[in-house]
């Protein structure tokens, strides 16, 4: 197809919403054109002399596309007609790499996918491996995982607050968002040793127990964060410019969101109460109390408000974890998957050999295939794993929420202004490391 085809939107109102996203051709929201074709159209000024539409390229090195996202936009004046996200600029071959690394090493690989919330990819990977191994992890490990993941959700949403504010011109938010994120990151660094890419949640438990005095740090965080969220409310939520910039921009119905396979805040903003933490409780989420935040209009403002309130819910969950944290082991005492403790290595030759074997060869995982999903800050993050009985995954596929959510972008942007496009990209909050893998 080419841009010359007419855009007939006269009977838009009578069309079923799911039919709208299913359309092909020139009346669709998606610009279905290969890069070569687009370049050809763009290079020939005489091709459509009487046509007012232009093809505009945005990215991949653009300040408001969150990394290396590239968009091809078909514009008429300042109005976006069709658009197409062009991705792959950060394709790292992680799924191929995952087949080269053993289950032991796998979490170092997957943690680098979603770099804003690395612990969730580790968690999904570990849950899938544990399902194949059919092992139960100790209770304390479960609760530590929950604590760390909720903290990571805080960090990720603070990052969203910072970048969302910056993209929309509230540059001060950049400073505020990072201020809180640094506090969270500092605790994660204390526990895992790294600010990002933690490799902390591993099949069989977590890498290390929580450090002494962690309760104090958490209590301090819990005390500090709620008043700062009030500051956000003052700065943004109630502010007329902020509302005017976001309300009604990029709206989507629930049917469209489901048809486009959206998950996470993008789906919840359209009014679908879907949260894997509540719907398919993993870890110990059935033992904590929290609300699933749901929007009404599916616009950018709802997506912002959902994330802001999810911070509050996470704070609530962390408070309950602080109360309920059980004692015990932080990793499973199964010799097959757990290396011996450091102290035993100095004493016993067998322990040393065992340690060496587990780190060089890894452990064998029974053959089979499994899918495990968690609710990451961006939506349903799943790992589909096929094992052939060896110590390396035969196939490791990650269902990345940003990748699938990106499909909603052309539909959100359609018939909006290009300036609103920036708000929409920001509110879908894609992390390109996860999109391209």
């Amino acid at each position, binding site marked *: 197809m080419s841009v010359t085809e007419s855009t007939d939107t006269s009977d838009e109102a009578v069309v079923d919403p799911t039919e709208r*996203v299913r359309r092909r051709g020139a009346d669709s929201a998606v610009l279905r054109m290969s890069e070569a074709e687009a370049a050809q159209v763009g290079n020939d000024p005489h091709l459509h002399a009487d046509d007012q539409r232009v093809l505009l390229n945005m990215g991949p090195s653009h300040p408001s596309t969150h990394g290396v996202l590239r968009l091809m936009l078909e514009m008429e004046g300042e109005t976006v007609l069709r658009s197409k996200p062009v991705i792959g600029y950060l394709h790292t071959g992680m799924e*191929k790499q995952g087949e080269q690394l053993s289950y032991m090493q796998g979490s170092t690989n997957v943690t680098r996918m979603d770099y804003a919330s690395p612990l969730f990819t580790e968690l999904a990977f570990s849950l899938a491996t544990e399902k194949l191994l059919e092992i139960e992890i100790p209770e304390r490990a479960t609760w530590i995982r929950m604590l760390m993941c909720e903290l990571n959700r805080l960090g990720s949403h603070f990052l969203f607050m910072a970048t969302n504010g910056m993209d929309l011109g509230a540059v001060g938010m950049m400073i505020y968002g990072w201020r809180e994120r640094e506090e969270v990151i500092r605790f994660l660094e204390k526990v895992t040793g790294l600010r990002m890419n933690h490799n902390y949640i591993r099949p069989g438990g977590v890498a290390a127990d929580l450090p002494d005095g962690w309760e104090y740090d958490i209590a301090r965080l819990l005390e500090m964060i709620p008043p700062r969220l009030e500051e956000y409310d003052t700065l943004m939520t109630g502010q007329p410019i902020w509302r005017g910039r976001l309300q009604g921009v990029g709206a989507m119905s629930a049917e469209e969101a489901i048809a486009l396979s959206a998950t996470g805040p993008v789906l919840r903003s359209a009014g679908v109460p879907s949260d894997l933490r509540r719907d398919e409780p993993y870890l110990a989420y059935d033992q904590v109390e929290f609300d699933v935040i749901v929007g009404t209009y599916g616009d950018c403002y709802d997506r912002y408000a959902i994330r802001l309130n999810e911070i509050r819910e996470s704070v609530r969950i962390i408070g309950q974890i602080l109360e309920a944290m059980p004692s015990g082991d932080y990793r499973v005492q199964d010799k097959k998957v757990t290396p011996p403790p450091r102290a035993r290595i100095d004493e016993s030759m067998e322990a040393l050999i065992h340690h060496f074997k587990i780190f060089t060869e890894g452990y064998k995982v029974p*053959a089979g295939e499994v899918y495990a999903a968690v609710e990451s800050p961006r939506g349903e993050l799943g790992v589909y794993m096929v094992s052939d009985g060896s110590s390396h995954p035969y196939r490791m*596929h990650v269902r990345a929420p940003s990748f699938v959510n990106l499909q909603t972008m052309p539909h959100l942007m359609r018939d909006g202004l290009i300036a609103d496009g920036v708000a929409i990209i920001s509110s879908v909050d894609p992390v390109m490391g996860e999109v391209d893998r």
Partner: protein
Amino acid sequence: MNAEPDGSTETEDDPTPPAPLRYGAPLTDSRGQAVVHPSRDTWLEVAEAALNDGFDHLTDVTAVDFLEYPGRRDLPDGVEPQRFEVVALLSNIATRERIRMRVQVPVDDPTVPTLFDLWPGSETPEREVFDMFGISFVDHPDLCRILMPDDWVGHPLRKDYAVGRIPVQFKDQGASL
């Protein structure tokens, strides 16, 4: 490289009882998760039946290349193993039920009907499978490479595609500067 020879006896379910049917396709259980095995001819029928049954959310579409693992045993009777397998994960948003569809795709004709007309959300996952495995989705609205550059040769996640590792070299200080 990680393939176990066929001799591995680790199978989860005894093949003797015939697999029950769901939507007219054999249904198996993998670690507590329901899997249906349609053929390529019934792929769309089964998908449509699942959609009408309430599986309104297509969570993901992916594929596996079984070139180095021919001895897998988790297929029900009557399903002929082929080199590729396309996997579609469905879920029911209201009841949170999940089901997986796995279809065998031969290497000499790597085509599957697209699910786009049932779930428009299959568009980019199917493009990814096309890019990474070279499996074409018939009637897909925009089948082109998504992650690799347009002019790339080969499909990286196939098992006969090397990982492309280069040996680490330590350069002479004088030579490169």
